[in-house]
């Protein structure tokens, strides 16, 4: 992507993630999107004189859990700090954040080939399965929402003070595709831990990108540009593709890259200068004196550990190893916890787990994209697979049963009966059909005996027609061959 041959991009991401908690970070107001303006506020989250922060244990636990999922070091003693700057969406004009002693440091995010954009999944960059190092994960409070009018702005403080986790990567990413896969992987893990809904389009996950270019082989970084207004994972990819090309074109023309913040315009498909950084902010960080340090070694870490889910990578391995699903199917299942739970329930009672995966991922999802709300009970798929494998119905019949299952969900066994589909496997009954077929088709019998193997198909067709499709095809084949060679 970055390569116009001799150039490579260096990309680092800062991802803000809204935590799924009942209440805000430092007060008991509910943490919920969509309330009437300023209806979910109190003296604390409005920054009223005299109010004090009371930290949300669950938000801390979820941040530690996130750190554990990414293999971070969890601080025994973490601290909150004040980050000072004036802005109307920040009630206290300082943000309670973490600076020197964040809850989590280090860790890494693995790039699964299937998390790359579809068109890149077969490329070397996708197959490289790189691991991207994290710098840190810390916990802070979100700011209010502003609405802009002609001359004034209006502020709704409902979002102010909701818990926000910041995940910072090292500048390890080299391509737009990797950034795409990184965010996808991040989202998958966050969903698996039930930490956040992590939907970028809903603002639950927000991403700032730092990107620079340099000649391949050079160690020093180029001048970095910050990209903002990225509202989807594919938007991040498009913005990076554009920005990397822009920077390479500029340096190839001998122009210097400005140290600046650029805004991605999704419609225009281009980035535009937002502000140039003349002077770095002086945030005057210092330890938040209203809060004691947080000890994680007295129960918090243990609580987080007990909530550790099976991580997507481990889940994929297990599904492939134990259930025999393909790598692609495993990645699809690992990416969607609800679907995966549904699948695992479906596969629980049958030996034919890969068949169940095929039914669910190929046929079922096409008709019912929301398995959680589907009236089709997952056990039905195991039953269907068993009916086919056990010879009760053939695959053509199975398709009929499936269609009926979607239309009128009930037990496949019952449906087979209802549709009158049960396969005839009784040898004597089939023998009668076969005898009839031989008697009625002397020409085909002759052809077969003359060595035209295909001629047997006409006889089979006769049996199937006579039996209304219920005859067990494999058995019919066997009986016919025996009779004809007799």
């Amino acid at each position, binding site marked *: 992507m970055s390569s116009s041959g001799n150039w490579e991009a260096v990309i680092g991401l800062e991802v803000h993630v809204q935590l799924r908690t009942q209440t805000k970070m430092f007060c008991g107001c509910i943490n919920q999107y969509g309330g*009437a303006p*300023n*209806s979910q506020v109190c003296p604390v989250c409005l920054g009223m004189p005299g109010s004090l922060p009371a930290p949300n244990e669950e938000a801390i636990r979820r941040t530690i859990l996130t750190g554990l999922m990414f293999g971070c070091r969890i601080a025994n003693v973490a601290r909150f700090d004040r980050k000072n700057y004036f802005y*109307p969406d920040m009630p206290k004009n300082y943000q309670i954040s973490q600076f020197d002693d964040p809850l989590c440091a280090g860790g890494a995010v693995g790039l699964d080939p299937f998390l790359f954009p579809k068109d890149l999944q077969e490329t070397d960059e996708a197959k490289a399965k790189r691991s991207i190092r994290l710098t840190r994960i810390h916990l802070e409070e979100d700011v209010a929402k502003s609405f802009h009018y002609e001359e004034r702005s*209006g502020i709704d403080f409902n979002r102010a003070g909701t818990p926000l986790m910041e995940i910072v990567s090292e500048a390890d990413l080299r391509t737009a595709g990797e950034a795409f896969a990184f965010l996808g992987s991040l989202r998958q893990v966050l969903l698996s831990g039930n930490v956040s809904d992590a939907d970028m389009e809903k603002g639950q996950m927000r991403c700032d990108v730092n990107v620079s270019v340099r000649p391949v082989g050079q160690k020093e970084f180029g001048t970095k540009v910050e990209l903002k207004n990225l509202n989807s994972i594919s938007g991040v990819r498009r913005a990076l593709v554009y920005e990397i090309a822009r920077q390479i074109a500029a340096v190839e023309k001998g122009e210097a890259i400005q140290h600046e913040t650029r805004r991605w315009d999704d419609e225009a498909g281009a980035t535009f200068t937002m502000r140039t950084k003349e002077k770095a902010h002086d945030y005057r960080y210092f330890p938040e004196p209203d809060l004691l340090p947080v000890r994680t070694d007295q129960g918090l870490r243990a609580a987080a550990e007990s909530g550790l889910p099976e991580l997507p990578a481990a889940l994929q391995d297990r599904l492939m190893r134990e259930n025999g699903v393909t790598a692609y199917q495993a990645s699809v299942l690992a990416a969607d916890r609800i679907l995966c739970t549904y699948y695992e329930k479906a596969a629980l009672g049958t030996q034919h787990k890969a068949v169940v995966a095929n039914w669910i991922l190929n046929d079922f999802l096409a008709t019912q994209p929301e398995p959680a709300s589907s009236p089709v009970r997952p056990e039905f798929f195991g039953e269907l697979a068993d009916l086919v494998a056990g010879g009760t119905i053939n695959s053509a019949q199975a398709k009929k049963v499936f269609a009926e299952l979607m239309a009128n969900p009930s037990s496949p066994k019952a449906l087979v009966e209802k549709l009158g589909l049960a396969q005839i496997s009784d040898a004597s009954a089939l023998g009668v059909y076969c005898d009839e077929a031989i008697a009625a088709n002397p020409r085909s019998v002759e052809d077969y005996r003359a060595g035209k193997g295909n001629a047997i198909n006409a006889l089979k067709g006769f049996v199937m027609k006579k039996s209304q499709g219920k005859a067990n095809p494999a058995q019919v084949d066997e009986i016919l061959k025996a009779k004809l060679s007799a």
Partner: protein
Amino acid sequence: MSVPKLNVADVAGLARLSLTPDETTKFSSQLSQILAHMETLGQIGTGDVPEVVPPAQPALRKDIPTPSLTVEAALSNAPAQSNDLILVPKIVE
């Protein structure tokens, strides 16, 4: 440590204060006198002393909602409001 040059107007800007020329002059001389006094800390050896870390104790809030203010109470002190939003001059980035 030598008495640092304190640019009162710059620092005031960080704190969103605008000072009159008189205030700037007066504060400059008063504050450099105070800073000169504070400088004496430089003579105290603190090599091995860790920064004060208050004792940590597990007094964290459970994640259980408590009532918010009514919208009316929340906005009752706001100098300017409309449609339940608090108004400020237009925010331009």
